[in-house]
């Protein structure tokens, strides 16, 4: 009993210490160049995908542009509107960024309520003068990866490549954004190699890497030798499967070669970090512009890493990428449109 009361006193002292510490920390530091708030998608930080990439851009802006930042990781869709409102209400942020396509409804409401507040949103469009919308032509990234995989799967002398002309992709969920990637991937592979067969399946979850691995093993069993992961954290299981069975995997969103240096062929990059950095830069320099900003290979919003890709294939991919950049090739963004597109673009 005595112990209990004593510990109560200890807690009181601890509380006091913490309070003093908090006061001490909150003073000092010069005024920042700008204040930026970010509302992440419900997957939260640590997805090794667009949330993390966006966070990296924010941190870089902090360091290089001298801004001050604040962020929130909502746990459900219903929280978006409240969080955006709470940030906007303070009227101290120069820019508030929404990350993820499911924030559109919330941002539409909040941006109308705070017409003088600047907003940016990633992956979808909110049509308002004070909102800069950044969307990516996901299919272009899929296309270059498809080209690489389509050319690679016919190689000989590489133990990671088998005789069969089969490649695959594992998506997180059967949703339009992922399907745009898959459509581009199929188009790219079959454009350079009409005989190639492209397998695709979905995990049905973004955070179940064990299941992602099993789906990949199914594809390997059916003759695939290169599988792209478009499945967030579930997709890390794809890379594990490739490493274990000595096949190739393709990473997504950021450079994932470190996970399996001998088996990650390339990475489909989506530079959310650059996008956010640029948006912040524009706010600071007074060049912020509302409206839609479409980012693709041309705008360097998307790209790929050369990693383990042989030089001759890199050359071919770059040539085709130029055609996409110049507008000569417009890549389909729906899986059902791929066949028609291929017919129209027969070489």
């Amino acid at each position, binding site marked *: 009993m005595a112990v209990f009361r004593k510990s109560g006193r200890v*807690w009181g002292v601890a509380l006091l210490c*913490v*309070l003093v510490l908090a006061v001490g920390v909150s003073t000092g530091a010069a005024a920042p160049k700008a204040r930026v708030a970010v509302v992440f998608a419900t997957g939260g930080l640590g997805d090794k995908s667009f949330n993390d990439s966006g966070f990296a851009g924010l941190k870089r802006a902090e360091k290089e542009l001298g801004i001050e930042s604040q962020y929130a990781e909502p746990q459900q869709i219903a929280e978006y509107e409240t969080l955006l409102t709470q940030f906007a209400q303070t009227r101290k942020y120069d820019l508030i960024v929404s990350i993820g*396509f499911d924030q559109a*409804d919330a941002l539409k409401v909040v941006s109308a309520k705070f017409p003088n507040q600047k907003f940016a949103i990633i992956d979808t469009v909110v049509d308002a003068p004070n909102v800069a919308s950044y969307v990516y032509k996901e299919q272009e990234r899929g296309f270059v990866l498809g080209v690489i995989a389509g050319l690679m799967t016919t190689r000989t002398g590489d133990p990671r490549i088998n005789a069969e002309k089969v490649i695959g992709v594992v998506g997180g969920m059967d*949703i339009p954004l992922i399907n745009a990637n898959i459509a581009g991937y199929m188009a790219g592979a079959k454009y350079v190699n009409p005989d190639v067969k492209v397998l695709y399946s979905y995990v049905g979850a973004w955070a179940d890497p064990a299941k992602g691995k099993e789906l990949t093993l199914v594809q390997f069993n059916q003759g695939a030798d290169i599988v792209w992961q478009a499945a967030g954290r579930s997709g890390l299981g794809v890379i594990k499967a490739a490493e274990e069975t000595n096949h190739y995997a393709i990473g997504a969103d950021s450079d994932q070669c470190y996970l399996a240096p001998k088996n990650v062929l390339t990475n489909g990059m989506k530079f959310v970090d650059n996008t956010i950095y640029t948006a912040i830069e524009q706010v600071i320099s007074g060049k912020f512009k509302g409206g839609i900003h479409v980012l693709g290979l041309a705008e360097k919003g998307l790209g790929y890493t050369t990693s383990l890709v042989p030089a001759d294939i890199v050359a071919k991919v770059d040539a085709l990428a130029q055609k996409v950049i110049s507008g000569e090739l417009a890549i389909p963004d729906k899986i059902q449109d791929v066949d028609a597109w291929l017919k129209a673009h027969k070489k």
Partner: protein
Amino acid sequence: MKDGETERRCEHEHEREHEHEHRHERGCGHQVSTREGEPSRGAAARVVRRAAGRLARPGVSDIAYSAVAVLLALVIGAILIAASGYSVIDAYANLFDGAFGSIYNFANTLMMATPLLFTGLSVAVAFQCGLFNVGAEGQLYVGGLASAVVVLVLGPAVPGVVRVLLALVAGALAGAVLAAGPGYMKARLGAHEVITTIMLNYVGVFLTTFLVKTYLKEPGPVDQTPLLPVGARLPELIPGTRVSWGIVLGVAAVMAVDYILRRTSVGYEIQTVGRNAAAAEYAGVNVPGRIVLAMVMSGAIAGLAGSSVVMGTLYRFITNFSPGYGFTGIAVAVLARNKPWGVLPAALLFGMLQSGGMSMQLFARIPADLMTLVQGIVILFVAAPALASMFLARSRAGAGTGGRG
């Protein structure tokens, strides 16, 4: 099989005498399928209970114990917050401010509590009949979609009020249908409802996703229905905030369920089945019928949880929209000791933790995971009345008097 069951139930009755002593001593029931208000049997039990009553602290109610438990959990949370280098005062000031600091914030608390009020009530109703409905999650998906479909299909020719009412009916019906299956399988085939409802959760999620994609998709990057027209939504309860009439509907549902359970013969039969199926059957109750009915009620209420979110918060059906309202509903129900009126404060507690947690994260920069951790501790502590009474006894009288549960 029958004999075994009867024997088991008798044991159960015997055991409940002990249970009652506890309940009166600490004002809390434990067992899922029991409920208060039943006369104790046996003189010995009465004597013990009276003795316990003298020892126990009269006037200290359920709510006080729950409050102490919440406080205890918050103290542990404070230690964790301090240990990870954050300011406790800052954190809790923001928690309070986020939950109650302004009308907008308080409305947020109510908004967050709304679906949990329904799912909690849904799980509680099933528990009253001795059934564990783990399927509120799936039921709320089909309910939400049914409501959206009705609103969108009826079109502007039908007055908004009528659309809203029909949509609510459709939501309840859809939830009821999905829950009727497990009810029927339990009653007729003896298939355990925990398995069937868990499986149907997945079915509910995938089925609604399929239907939205195939028939109702609004063009764009998200698989969702078009927005519901302004006139056919659940209106805001407090203008300028995010709480809708859904919460009023929820309270009405609580009243209705309370009435049915306590004042109607059907409700009484449902509880009799929950307490002692064999005895109920002996007394002439249609046990399979009541099991199906309880699941149907439970499913209808869970369906309304989906309707309230779709029509009052998101204003459209979005695939995969629920962060697990159905599962949190289990915690809400059992914190409420499965009593309809208990669901209200329990749901509000969760709403408060969520809306306050948002502010804690925003302005005190406490990671959301720490908040999840504290939520888990709150649930554990509130679930354990013995802990709170132990704490109260010790802080009141020092060593010797209390503690032993």
